[in-house]
């Protein structure tokens, strides 16, 4: 080729050639067959999806219930003159009380096995709420230890309330019964007490349970039969002697009580006595015993008491050291030292006693003749005449002049038994010496000492020393005149006013022999009052004067004018006082 500019030919001659290319034709297998659509069945939407149970979603419960007796609505308490809680006219500083937030609730005892019954007690409102509201009116709110006693009694079928004398066993029992009636736990009660205490129980029932009807089983045979077998009165009161006499009615199959309460239950400490046997034969659901001396002589006394309270609880021949475990929570006893923070330093109670038949006869005769005589005196009558009649009648209230019987002495002996059993000491006051001498004879077993005008000055100090130091001397007998002033007997806890003085100030001074600085325990004062006699009338007049005095004058001034005026003395027999001009003559 020329290396210069080479130009492309205008024409190229190409020789044709023949190339044999073998071509093979084969069929494609896939196209041998015609296309055919296939369909596979899908069943997902037609069948239910599978599920797994996760458990029950709903919640179920069951219930169980207990229905209780419908409580009865007590009627409004009737208006009555509420006795003032007797305290000294001289203002006493209030005792320091333990400020406790604990409310007193009923607790079922161990031997209550029925669940519904246990619930009934557990679900009761606290006693503080019961007494604090309008539903149960009481003249005075019970002390905390008394609430405890009420809570102790209410749930028990077997109970012994063995508080020391003066702590209010009567009040606790009455309030417990009253609440049980309200809650429909019980429908009828029999209360057995010594005869001298029947009037006392009646008064306490009217004071603390005015809405609770009661009747005293007494009178002739027909009346007593009706009272035992037909009367529907919810609370019946009977003395031990009548109970024993009416054994035939008592054992009637229709006679049954929800509660039987024995006051001064040491009366049945002799298991074989007829009284004890009759008491044990009473058909009852609950058995309560009240006594300040559950063990007077030996543990046998307590065992015999349980023969009534819960027969079979204490097997025969049980050794004494096993007793606490057996009696368990069936017995409740408090002494003054246990409760002194709850109590006022001094408590006064009036014990109204019915005169013995001999006393009653002598009294009525003397009063009738005396009033006739006073009326016959006409204008010549003086207060001295009236005074003499009053003195005469008061002496009969102490002792029957012919037989020497004394309702007061019977009660005093019973009370002193409790005092001595508790190792306490008591002072007995009278305005005369003669009664003190008779009392000394009756209280021989308690080591009585006398302190009055017939005791020489030289002997008096020996008497006082012995009273303080000799543990066997439980009582000292004093006249108001000699014993009212200048003595320190603050180791005595009990004061008995066998008969009362004209002037309450003198009484207070007598009481203050025991109730004074240095006294470590509360003092309990018992004033004996013969029922339906001049003593009751005098007591009313003096009480009104005391209340008036307390309202009007300063508390720490000597109450110089609390004695009875001439008009008041004449008024005791509804005799008009003499005009002043006649008196001047």
């Amino acid at each position, binding site marked *: 080729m020329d290396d210069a500019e080479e130009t492309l030919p205008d024409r190229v001659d190409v020789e044709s050639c023949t190339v044999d290319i073998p071509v093979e034709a084969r069929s494609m297998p896939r196209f041998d067959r015609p296309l055919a659509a296939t369909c596979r069945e899908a069943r997902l939407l037609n069948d239910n999806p599978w599920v797994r149970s996760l458990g029950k979603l709903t919640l179920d419960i*069951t219930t169980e219930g207990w229905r209780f007796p419908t409580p009865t609505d007590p009627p409004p308490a009737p208006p009555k003159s509420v006795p003032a809680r007797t305290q000294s006219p001289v203002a006493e500083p209030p005792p320091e009380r333990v400020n406790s937030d604990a409310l007193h609730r009923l607790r079922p005892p161990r031997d209550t096995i029925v669940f519904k019954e246990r619930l009934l007690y557990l679900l009761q409102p606290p006693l503080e709420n019961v007494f604090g*509201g309008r539903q149960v009116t009481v003249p005075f709110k019970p002390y905390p230890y008394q609430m405890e006693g009420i809570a102790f009694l209410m749930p028990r079928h077997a109970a012994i309330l063995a508080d020391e004398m003066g702590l209010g066993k009567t009040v606790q029992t009455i309030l417990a019964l009253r609440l049980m009636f309200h809650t429909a736990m019980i429908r009828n009660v029999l209360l057995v007490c010594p005869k001298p205490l029947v009037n006392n129980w009646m008064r306490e029932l009217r004071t603390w349970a005015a809405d609770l009807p009661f009747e005293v089983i007494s009178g002739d045979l027909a009346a007593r039969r009706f009272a035992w077998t037909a009367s529907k009165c919810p609370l019946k009161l009977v003395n031990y002697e009548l109970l024993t006499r009416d054994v035939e009615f008592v054992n009637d199959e229709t006679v049954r009580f929800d509660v039987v309460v024995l006051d001064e239950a040491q009366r049945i400490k002799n298991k074989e006595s007829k009284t004890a046997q009759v008491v044990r034969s009473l058909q009852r659901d609950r058995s309560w015993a009240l006594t300040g001396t559950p063990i007077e002589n030996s543990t046998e006394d307590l065992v015999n008491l349980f023969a009534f309270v819960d027969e079979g609880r204490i097997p025969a021949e049980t050794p004494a050291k096993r007793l606490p475990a057996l009696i368990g929570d069936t017995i409740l006893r408090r002494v003054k030292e246990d409760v002194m923070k709850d109590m006022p330093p001094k408590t006064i109670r009036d014990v109204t006693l019915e005169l013995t038949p001999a006393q009653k006869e002598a009294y009525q005769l003397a009063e009738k003749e005396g009033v006739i005589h006073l009326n016959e005196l006409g204008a010549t009558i003086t207060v001295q005449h009236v005074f003499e009649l009053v003195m005469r009648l008061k002496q009969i209230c102490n002792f029957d002049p012919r037989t020497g019987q004394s309702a007061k002495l019977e009660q005093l002996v019973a009370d002193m038994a409790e005092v001595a059993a508790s190792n306490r000491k008591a002072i007995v006051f009278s305005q005369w010496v003669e009664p003190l001498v008779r009392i000394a004879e009756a209280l021989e077993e308690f080591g009585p000492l006398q302190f009055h005008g017939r005791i020489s000055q030289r002997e008096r100090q020996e008497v006082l020393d012995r009273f303080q130091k000799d543990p066997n001397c439980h009582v000292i007998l004093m006249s108001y005149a000699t014993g009212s002033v200048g003595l320190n007997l603050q180791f005595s806890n009990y004061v008995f006013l066998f008969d009362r003085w004209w002037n309450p100030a003198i009484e207070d001074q007598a009481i203050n022999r025991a109730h004074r600085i240095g006294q470590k325990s509360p003092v309990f004062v018992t004033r004996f009052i013969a029922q339906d006699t001049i003593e009751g009338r005098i007591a009313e007049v003096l009480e009104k004067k005391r209340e008036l005095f307390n309202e009007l004058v300063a508390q720490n001034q000597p109450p110089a004018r609390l004695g009875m005026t001439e008009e008041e003395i004449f008024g005791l027999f509804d005799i008009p006082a003499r005009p002043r001009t006649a008196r001047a003559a």
Partner: protein
Amino acid sequence: MPRDRPPRGSPLMYTRGRGQTVALPSPPVVPASERPAAPLSLGFLTILHEASGYLGGYLVTNTWGRPLEFRLSSAVQPNKVQQILYAGTLLPYICADLIGKTLVDKAAVSVSLVVTDREAALDLRLKLEVPVLWLAGADDPRALALAGGPSAVVPASAGRGPVLCHPRYAAQDVPASRELLSRLDSAFDLAEPFGRVREAIAEARKLGVGARAA
């Protein structure tokens, strides 16, 4: 006994011997305003949450707090699924619908007012015709928040939380509850019965008493 029943409103007649008829004096009609109010009963509902589940106690009392009836429920323990599914509605459902409603319905004594110490039981009001009150704790923040609102029945006082009703029914329940509460004894403490209910539940557990078939 009258031989023929007299028409309504006419004095009762009774027939003596020889065909004499005598009209018995009709009792005096006492105006409604002077009739003594029907006795009031209250229900106290508490629900405890224990290891075995939720269980309820229900105490019915009179206006003085004396017990009339007590009911106890069995324990109910929701499982995990239930807890998830019910979620936040579980507690009100258990307390109000399940336990509360069952106890109140099964009680023989009907009540005019139900008091509970659990807020979750307040929804019981949706199932009942009587007011349901929640006695709240003194330091319950939710209660204190509601105390100033329309559902407050009794305000909070020293040591005590407010008493509240269900908000939906505040308009009628607040005045109605106050009127009912005014009829209670002055010494009646609304919180006190709950202690008794808890003690009763504990006693039942101790004695092995459980709810059997209702």
